[in-house]
C-alpha cells in the first residue's frame, strides 16, 4: 500500500483515513467473513455503555429517499462483555480500533471511559449525539453546558488514549459545540451523527418506526455534513473526522476539502460491504492521477 494515504490523528497512526462508522459495522467481526479487515484504516465500534442495553422496540429501520431512518436505540452488550468477548477477536486484525461509547449520566460516561482507557483499543469516541434514546445521548450534545461538563469530566479520567467527541447535527450552530468540546479537552471531533427525522405510512397513518422519530443517514445528509465540517474547520484547531453519506472516493475528497483529517463510512457499508476497501483503492488512484503526495495536503483546501 502506498504511503500517500497514511495519516496520524492525535499521535495515532492509521494506514489509511477510511474508518467504518459506529453502529454500521457491528463489533467489526460481523464483517470479517466478507472483507479483509486488515485493509481498513480503522473501525469505530457500535456505541458501548456500562451495562448491556436492549435498544428500542421494532420496527427500527426504514428506508427514505437516498437515505434511511434508524432508531436502534444504542443496543450493545455492555463494556465488560465487549472487552472480554468482542475485543480479543477484533485485536487479531491490523487496524485501528476506536470505541464509540455513551452513558445516561456524566458518571456513566466517566466510568465507561475509565474502563476503556485501560483496554487494548486505540482511541475513544464519545457519542453525545444519538437521537434515539431518552436519557443522555442527544441531551449532552445539544446543550453547550452539558457538552462542556461531560467532555471535561470524562477527559479527567482518560490517561492513555485520545478522546474524539462525536457531535450532533441537530443544533442551530455546530461551531459552538465544536468550540466547547475543544475547550473541555477533546483531542478530535467527529461529525456528524444522524439527523433527526420521521416517516409516516399513509396506509396505516402511523409512523414507520416504533420510536416515531429516527436518525437519518446516507447520501441524503451529505451536504449538511460537508457544511458542518467546513464550519468546524474554520472554528477549531483539533482534527475533524468527517462523517455523513460517503459512498465513494469523491465524497471523501469533498470532506477533505471541507476540512476533514479522516472520514468514517456508515450506511454505505450496508449497501456494499466492500465499499470501504474499494474507496481506499480509488483514493490512491485519485491522488496519483492528481500528483498529490499525501491525502492530508487536501485538508481544508476548498477554494472559496
Amino acid at each position: 500500500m502506498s504511503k500517500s494515504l497514511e495519516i496520524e490523528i492525535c499521535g495515532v497512526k492509521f494506514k489509511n483515513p477510511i474508518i467504518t462508522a459506529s453502529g454500521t459495522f457491528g463489533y467489526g467481526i460481523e464483517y470479517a467473513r466478507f472483507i479483509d479487515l486488515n485493509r481498513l484504516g480503522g473501525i469505530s465500534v457500535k456505541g458501548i455503555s456500562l451495562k448491556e442495553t436492549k435498544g428500542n422496540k421494532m420496527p427500527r429501520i426504514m428506508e427514505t429517499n437516498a437515505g434511511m431512518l434508524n432508531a436502534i436505540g444504542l443496543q450493545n452488550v455492555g463494556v465488560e462483555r465487549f472487552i472480554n468477548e468482542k475485543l480479543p477477536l477484533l485485536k487479531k486484525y491490523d487496524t485501528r480500533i476506536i470505541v464509540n461509547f455513551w452513558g445516561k449520566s456524566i458518571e456513566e460516561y466517566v466510568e465507561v471511559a475509565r474502563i476503556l482507557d485501560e483496554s487494548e483499543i486505540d482511541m475513544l469516541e464519545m457519542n453525545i449525539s444519538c437521537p434515539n434514546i431518552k436519557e443522555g445521548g442527544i441531551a449532552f450534545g445539544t446543550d453547550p453546558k452539558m457538552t462542556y461538563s461531560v467532555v471535561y469530566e470524562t477527559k479527567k479520567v482518560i490517561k492513555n488514549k485520545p478522546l474524539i467527541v462525536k457531535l450532533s447535527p441537530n443544533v442551530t450552530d455546530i461551531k459552538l459545540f465544536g468550540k466547547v468540546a475543544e475547550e473541555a479537552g477533546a483531542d478530535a471531533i467527529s461529525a456528524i451523527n444522524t439527523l433527526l427525522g420521521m416517516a409516516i405510512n399513509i396506509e396505516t397513518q402511523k409512523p414507520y418506526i416504533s420510536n416515531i422519530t429516527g436518525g437519518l443517514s446516507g447520501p441524503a445528509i451529505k451536504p449538511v455534513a460537508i457544511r458542518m465540517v467546513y464550519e468546524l474547520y474554520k472554528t477549531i484547531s483539533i482534527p475533524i473526522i468527517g462523517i455523513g453519506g460517503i459512498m465513494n472516493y469523491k465524497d471523501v475528497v469533498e470532506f477533505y476539502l471541507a476540512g476533514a483529517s479522516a472520514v468514517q463510512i456508515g450506511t454505505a457499508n450496508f449497501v456494499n460491504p466492500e465499499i470501504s476497501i474499494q474507496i481506499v483503492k480509488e483514493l490512491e488512484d485519485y491522488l496519483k492521477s492528481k500528483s498529490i503526495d499525501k491525502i492530508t495536503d487536501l485538508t481544508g483546501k476548498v477554494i472559496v
Partner: protein
Amino acid sequence: MKGKVVNNLMLNDKYYLMEIESEEFVSKAKPGHFMMVKAQQYDYLYDPLLRRPFGVCDIERGRFKILYILIGKGTNLLSQVKVGSYIEFSEPLGNTFNFNNEKTVALVGGGVGIAPLLFLAKYLYNQDVLVDLYYGGKTEDDILLIDEFKKYCQHIEVTTENGKVGKKGIVTLPLSENIKKYGKIYACGPKRMLQATSELAIEHNIPVEVSLDERMACGMGACLGCLVYVKNDKGEIEQKRCCVEGPVFDGARIVWE
C-alpha cells in the same frame, strides 16, 4: 457477487421469477438461505439505497431463481432488468432449514413465502422424504409454480380466500385435518399464517420451523434493525437477528407480537 440474468419472467400482474447465473452462489446456497440484491444497476444512483432481501427459490446447474412480488421502488426496478444484463447480490446469507430424517413432512406457504419452500421441497424429495404442500393465497394470482411443486410433492392442498382456486378459506384448515401424519412442519409466508401454523404444531407436539421476513438494512448482522424475539430453554425472551440467527426459527419459540 455478480451474475448474469438469464430470465426475468412476469408470472402475472404481481409476481416475477428471475433466474441468475452464478456458479459461486449456487455452490454455497442451501434451503432457507436468502441474499441481499442490489435493485439498481447503476452505481451513482442512490435511490433506492439499500439492497433488498430475497429467499433462494430454486437452484439448478449453476443458476438460481428468485420469486418476487412487486411492492415498491426496489422490486419495480428488478422487474425492469433486461435478460442478458448483470446484477449484484450478496452470497447466501442466514441460517438454513434443519432436517432430522423425518419421513413425512408438511410445507406450509403463502404468497411469496412459497419461494424458499420450493428449494426445500426439492432437497427433501432428494432425501426420499414424503413432502405435502399446503399453499394458501388471497386470490388465484397468488398461487404459483404448482407444476414445479408437483415434481417433488406427494400431495398438494391449495386454498384461496375467494375459493376460485383450491378450497375456500385459510390453509391451516386442511393442515389441521392431516397434521398428525407429519414428523415436521416447515412454513414461510405472512406472519399470521406462521403463527397459526406454529400454534397447531405446538398443540400436536410436532416440530415446526418458520422462515421470517423482517425489514433489513445490512443483512449481515451489523445494524440490529431486524430483531426477532425468541424464548430460550429457560423461557426467557432473547433478541435474535433475523438475518444471522435466522431467517429460520423454531416456530414454537417465537414471541409473536
